[in-house]
């Protein structure tokens, strides 16, 4: 758990972060979102003390961060930045092994961990471990960046616009990947972005920041339904709020489930349980379907969903 109590950060006379209070519960993904210069990165960098705070208290698992050795503090927090920050003179494997090596893990354990993480992030250890960062694509390099942050199994993950420099398709892939990994690992995560869609997709709770203050700290659904101010309302976008709400829920939430999964007819078309309602509606409108079967990840048919239900209850 991370608690910020009345935290202020000044740069000379300017106040970058102004008396903010924020609690990130264990295992949740807190996304700090706002326009550039709103203090979101500063807030993140105060948590691992890359920037010391001017006033207030920052507690990690109940302990004041200023009382801890900063290197020790950071070794227990994964850190992912925009543009990866991978060391160009180290191989992928050695980059991932950075923190375990700093913690002097035994050699075999490090090798095993690197292998495990590459597999977790969908990179083939045989082909990628020996490569240098310059030989990777942007998306692969950022996967390695995430693997490096996870290497020593920290409880906390700090991510500073990690997918900001990637193209839209790669970014979306990595966001989905991140959701999958987060479901498995349940790290307490603070994630900084200026992209509200990324925030809505990844967050357990979103903290909207403007000019050094937190305007609203709430679940994505509440941010969409009950924006606290005009600023938040503008940020989430007035017109397509309904569709954004739909993208927060999956087909699983609104389908009529069968009592037992069934074997589908060969060649049957349909939706997946994990598709968002927004995607589902889009497909159904395009294909002009009123009711379609839903499949689980194993390819079994687990229920059906209707267009009316999505339109009535989706948003």
């Amino acid at each position, binding site marked *: 758990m991370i608690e910020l109590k009345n935290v202020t950060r000044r740069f000379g006379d300017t106040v970058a972060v102004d008396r903010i209070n924020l609690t990130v519960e264990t295992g949740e993904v807190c996304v700090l979102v706002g326009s550039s210069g709103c203090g979101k990165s500063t807030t993140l960098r105060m948590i*691992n003390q*890359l920037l010391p705070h001017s006033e207030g208290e920052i507690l990690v698992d109940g302990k004041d961060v200023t009382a801890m050795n900063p*290197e*020790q*503090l*950071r*070794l*227990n927090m994964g*850190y992912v*930045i925009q*543009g*990866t*920050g*991978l*060391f*160009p*003179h180290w191989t992928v494997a050695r980059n991932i092994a*950075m*923190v375990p090596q*700093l913690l002097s893990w035994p050699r075999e354990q490090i090798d095993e961990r690197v292998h495990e993480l590459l597999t977790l992030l969908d990179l083939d250890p045989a082909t990628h471990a020996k*490569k*240098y960062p*310059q*030989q990777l694509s942007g998306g692969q390099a950022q996967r390695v960046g995430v693997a*490096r*942050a996870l290497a020593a199994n920290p409880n906390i993950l*700090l991510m500073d616009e990690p997918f900001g420099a990637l193209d839209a398709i790669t970014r979306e892939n990595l966001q989905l990947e991140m959701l999958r990994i987060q479901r498995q690992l349940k790290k307490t995560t603070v994630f900084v972005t200026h992209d509200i869609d990324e925030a809505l997709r990844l967050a357990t709770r979103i903290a909207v920041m403007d000019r050094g203050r937190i305007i609203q700290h709430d679940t994505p659904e509440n941010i969409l339904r009950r924006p606290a101010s005009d600023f938040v309302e503008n940020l989430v976008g007035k017109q397509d709020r309904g569709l954004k709400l739909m993208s927060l829920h999956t087909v699983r939430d609104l389908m009529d489930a069968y009592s037992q999964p069934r074997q589908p007819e060969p060649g049957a078309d349909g939706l997946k349980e994990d598709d968002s309602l927004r995607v589902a509606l889009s497909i159904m409108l395009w294909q002009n379907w009123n009711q379609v079967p839903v499949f689980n990840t194993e390819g079994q048919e687990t229920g059906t969903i209707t267009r009316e239900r999505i339109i009535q209850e989706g948003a």
Partner: protein
Amino acid sequence: MPNRVLPVLGLLALALVWLLNLGVIQPNRIVPGTGHGLVSAIGGAGAGLVSLILAGCVLLSLLPVRRRYLPLLALVGLSLALLPLLLEVFADRHLPDDAPYARSSIGAGFWCLLFLLSLMLIEILGRLGRGRWLQLLIIAVISGSWLWFLRGDGLESLSLVREFNARPDKFEQALWTHLALAFGAVSISACLAFFLALKMIRSVAWRRPILGAVSFLQTIPSLAVFGLLIAPLSALAAAFPALQAMGIRGIGWAPALLALVAYSLLPMVRNTFVALTEVPESLADAGRGMGMNERQLFFKLKLPLALPVIVEGVRITAIQAIGLTAVAALIGAGGFGSFIFQGLGQAAMDLVLLGALPTIALALLADALLTLLVASLKPTPAKA
């Protein structure tokens, strides 16, 4: 595609070797000699062979054959290795038997041939692109062959060899003095520059003064520094007998070393400082954020990334120092420069060459070795 560089070089060599004197016969050390052109120097058959080889190189490089660079390499490499044979034939044909002071020396045509063949070799090696080991092998074979010819009896009459044979001990001593002075200066200034660069990185206030001081040192003419150091060092030595006992005097190795160190500082400090400051801040931020302390950041990130540029500075400095050491002979520091100044004084050009050629060879050798080191230190492969 036919090569354009090699035919030009080959034709130029062919023209110059016919136009200029290949060798000169002097009745004694001082008197200017009589020059001999290609045919006169090595006879019609020899001249034909040389012309044939050069014409062969030109033709071969013009042919649109894929694998022509390997035979070209063999041809040019072998010609370079056997080049002293021309001098041997020349001396054999023209040196009078009854004149013990008569000597043969190298003419402009021979130098041109050597120079242009070397350029052709560099071009061929560049086209082949087979890595450094082949290049090293070729260079080793050629220098080995030259050494073997120079040590043999056939070239005994060559004035360069005569000058060497008159003073082999002095030559060896000059070699060691030269090496000790140049590399002593480079290593001292490398250590010094490293700490100065660290100081500049740690405190911004020191940047301008340090850079200003080392730049200023570089602007003083080298002869002036050597001269200027005589007075203060003599005074120091007179005041402290202990220094005198160490061999520190107004002239000799002490002022030479000091001046060489002063000259070496600018490229070293600048390269070290730039290399260390140009490590991207985002990498340092990532390292720090992962829990590295400043010491680990320096040794694991900044130094490895900066090292190729730092060694590049050492390379530039080493070449510069080897050349400058020759000038230091003027204040009695020894080294190959002493032959140059002696030769100038006695109007014996071949003694000047005896000092100049090894200085050039040393500089080229240092350049090659340090370039190799820089290449091996570049840790990341080119973008795949």
